[in-house]
């Protein structure tokens, strides 16, 4: 993106980001306004629009974006699904969702009426060419009537096994934008948003990526991981690269080890069947944990924009070497919860959950020791754990620093030997905590560990935006910083596939059990004890 050339000094906006937002320098009235970035006029096609996601998340997110003035007036929504609905019925369906789930609710009649004039519904079977032809015709008509300029955003709100067929049909109907179709190049853009899971293993992820790439270029594909959202990635990046203090010590010389925890208190809660096919490694580690680790450990990007950020993240993942079966047995622990008490209520054993086979070997907990073999991180173990039905709900990255080289105060109490900890809490109460030793006031020399605690919530008097609102807007603007690229997805599977294989063959160690409400199996504690360390209890 070229620098803006307005005579006025630009307010500090997220400058130099990817994407083809309308360059504000062409509209002199845009400078300094709240919405410095405005998406181009476009139509969003929700494929599988009658599902839960549309009602709970997409509808409210779009409505709130509109209320905030973040959407261009031409913006149009087309719901596409099998169910036989009229435009009006679909609008009513969306409105019910807004009245129930939107942060601004209920929808206001006159405003809704005006907004819903840009909401339509197309009925059709996903494998029927005629349905897609009818959709294409409708989109052309919308371009003419509403001035959406041929820009289309497809949101695949359907299970991944339908993705291949849908993108094939999008291409066949001539809706895939410029890919392999030169004469459409000037007719606006096409983008597609897909939700996780991004495959089941490396082979299926590759197949899924190939199917998407047959139709779309990588820069048209937006893989959504709403869990990380915008704030975490950017907060972590600002913490590391916006301060002069931390980056110099962000390496093997000063850091002893890193712990990443994604703990949930809930069990599988009715998702028994699908969870039993997935497990904690695929559900959480493949995307959330490895993404957190990559942002934590990456080198400074050349610019804070999508391609540079993702280049650096994938380099971290490439430095994590896949394990041999013996290494899997030594460096991984998988667990499954048995009956226990969480937050004062009794939770049944995983194997007693509905739809879960009574002899299931599926892991609901996993602890790993990963190594990033790079100059910066060689020799620093990354301990990673995630699980269901654990003691508290918390997501954090904790950095343990090396000890002071000389024990001057060895007789001054436990604090004297306690290592310094920097904990980056993602949820709940996003914040940063630094733990260090301080002298207890008084005549003697006693040292006690104290916390220096910073919380975003009490230092900035603003609310965080909803993840879906940010991500949808980013996609319309064409900013892919917060979406996952195909090479990241595939590399994550290259790391995890050997672990899954070794577990399946039995060479990777047995399944351990832990009571619900605990911090996981005892074997996970032993994993760290062998290295002379212990898990934090965040």
């Amino acid at each position, binding site marked *: 993106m070229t620098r803006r050339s307005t005579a*006025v*000094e630009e*307010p*500090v906006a997220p400058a130099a980001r990817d994407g083809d937002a*309308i360059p504000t320098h*062409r*509209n*002199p*009235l*845009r*400078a*300094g*306004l*709240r*919405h410095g970035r*405005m998406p*181009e*006029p476009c139509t969003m096609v929700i494929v599988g629009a009658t599902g839960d996601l549309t009602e709970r998340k997409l509808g409210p997110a779009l409505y709130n974006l509109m*209320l905030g*003035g973040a959407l*261009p*007036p*031409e913006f149009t929504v087309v719901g596409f699904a099998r169910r036989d609905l009229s435009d009006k019925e679909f609008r009513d369906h969306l409105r019910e969702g807004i009245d129930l789930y939107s942060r601004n609710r209920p929808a*206001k009649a*006159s*405003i809704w*009426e*005006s907004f819903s004039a840009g909401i339509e519904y197309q009925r059709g079977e996903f494998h029927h060419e005629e349905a897609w032809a009818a959709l294409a015709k409708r989109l052309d008509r919308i371009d003419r009537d*509403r*001035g959406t*300029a041929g820009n289309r955003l497809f949101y695949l709100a359907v299970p991944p096994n339908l993705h291949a067929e849908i993108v094939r049909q999008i291409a066949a109907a001539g809706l895939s934008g410029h890919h392999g179709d030169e004469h459409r190049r000037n007719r606006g853009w096409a983008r597609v948003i897909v939700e996780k899971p991004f495959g089941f293993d490396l082979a299926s992820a590759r197949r899924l990526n190939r199917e998407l790439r047959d139709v779309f270029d990588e820069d048209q594909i937006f893989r959504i991981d709403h869990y990380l959202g915008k704030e975490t990635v950017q907060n972590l990046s600002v913490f590391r690269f916006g301060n002069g203090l931390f980056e110099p010590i962000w390496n093997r010389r000063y850091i002893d080890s890193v712990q990443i925890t994604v703990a949930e208190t809930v069990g599988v809660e009715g998702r028994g069947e699908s969870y039993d096919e997935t497990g904690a490694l695929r559900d959480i580690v493949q995307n959330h944990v490895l993404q957190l680790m990559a942002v934590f450990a990456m080198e400074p990007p050349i610019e804070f924009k999508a391609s540079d950020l993702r280049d650096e993240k994938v380099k971290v993942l490439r430095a994590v070497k896949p394990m041999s079966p013996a290494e899997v047995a030594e460096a991984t622990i998988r667990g499954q919860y048995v009956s226990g008490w969480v937050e004062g209520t009794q939770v049944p054993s995983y194997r007693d959950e509905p739809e879960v086979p009574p002899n299931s070997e599926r892991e609901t907990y996993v602890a790993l020791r990963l190594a990033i073999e790079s100059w910066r991180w060689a020799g620093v173990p990354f301990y990673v754990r995630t699980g269901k039905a654990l003691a508290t709900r918390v997501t954090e990255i904790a950095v343990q620093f090396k000890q002071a080289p000389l024990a001057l105060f060895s007789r001054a109490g436990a604090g004297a030997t306690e290592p310094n900890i920097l904990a980056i809490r993602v949820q*709940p*109460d996003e914040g940063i905590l630094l733990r260090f030793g301080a002298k207890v006031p008084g005549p003697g020399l006693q040292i006690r560990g104290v916390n220096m605690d910073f*919380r975003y*919530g*009490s*230092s*900035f*008097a*603003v*609310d965080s935006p909803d993840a879906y609102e940010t991500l949808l807007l980013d996609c319309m603007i064409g900013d892919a910083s917060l979406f996952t690229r195909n090479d990241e997805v595939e590399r994550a599977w290259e790391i995890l596939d050997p672990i899954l294989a070794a577990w399946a063959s039995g060479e990777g160690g047995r399944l351990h059990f832990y009571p619900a409400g605990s911090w996981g199996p005892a074997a996970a504690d032993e994993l760290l004890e062998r290295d002379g360390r212990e898990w934090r209890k965040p």
Partner: protein
Amino acid sequence: MTTSAAAKRALAMHRRLMTFGEAESTVAQPWVEESTTVRAVEAHLAQLWTEQAPSGDPTFTEKGLHHARASVLNLIVMVPDEEAAARVVETMGGLGVRHPSRAIVLAADPAADGPPLSASITAHCNVGQEGSEQVCYEVVVLTVRGEAAEHLAGVVAPLLIHDLPTHVWWPGDPPFTDPIFDQLVEMGDRLVVDSSEFEDLLRGLRRLTTLRRRSGVGDLAWARLGWWQELTAEFFDGPRFRRYLPNLNRLTVRYAVAPAHRRPGRPRKPPPGQPHVRSTLVGPMLYAGWIASRLEWRRHATRQPLDDGRLQLTLEGRHEMVDLRIEPVETETVPPGELTEVRLRSYGETGAAEFIIGRATDEAIVCSNADGMTAMLRTVPMELPTESELLADDLVSDRHDPVYEAALRAAAVFLASARELELTG
């Protein structure tokens, strides 16, 4: 002993400000001293957040306050009279989680007798949304009398939380030439005013253009134009209409005034939480100044000097001469001073085009009439923001707004040229 009128006034104002202590979010008993010292106030503030609860829970102080005290900013509020005091109470009550960490509300009256310093301190904890933690803050109300009121800096400085930015909010018509104004403004990084409350608008706008603050000046009258600006800019985001922008040749801005039968005599009291609008013209002038400065229009001639809120200027655009019309509209549905309608007219290759935003209570109708067809008749929300919301937004800001500064200069120039003729001819 006879109590002077000034002292009575000061006492009444202080009572008004004390109503902070009755807010629902208060968790500690208000600390009230009719006669005290800065040192005593400082000492009370210091222990508010440090002493541990008798129960031994380290996360609570003995006053039952949670230790998650916000560290965002200091806010100094200068209250000139009792009416303003009531408003400050109302407005600050609406700030919610966006409240400054420490607010110091100052009433200074050099003419009053009585104790030089009265103070009250209340601590508040806001229960945020579900699952989020409580964030706490405190409000210090000071009434300074007699000679001490001429040396406010020394009273306020020790009471600020160090290393946090300090904003000074001066509701009403600030005494720009008073040394007290300079003293207080010097203490802050940013000054927040509402130019619609200025008695002499031209003088006030001119003074604002010369004020140099480290992190700028916030003007709530400008903030009220936010939605109008967004909607106006939206017309020209797409290439289709953007080509009309250089050829605009008429800008009409209409704004609300109270119906004639309401106007004579004393102005009505503003509704609670809303400013006392004295200069209804500031909104349309700032809007016109904004468009003109963004599009590099210059003043050329005065067609019709300011008369009964109406004026007409000819401006020199880059390609066209522009007719600027500002017209009052008598209405009761929109508060005085708010814009009611904006029309931008242009000539393109296919004839005239017009871009219109019209307001009806809390909604706006937006439409364009270009390329020979009416397009996109839309209804969008345009709720009147409360003073709390405007202030809360401004408290988050800590930078110069060059767009505002340019609009302010242009507005002052336009107003001066409309008024000079009014005065001389």
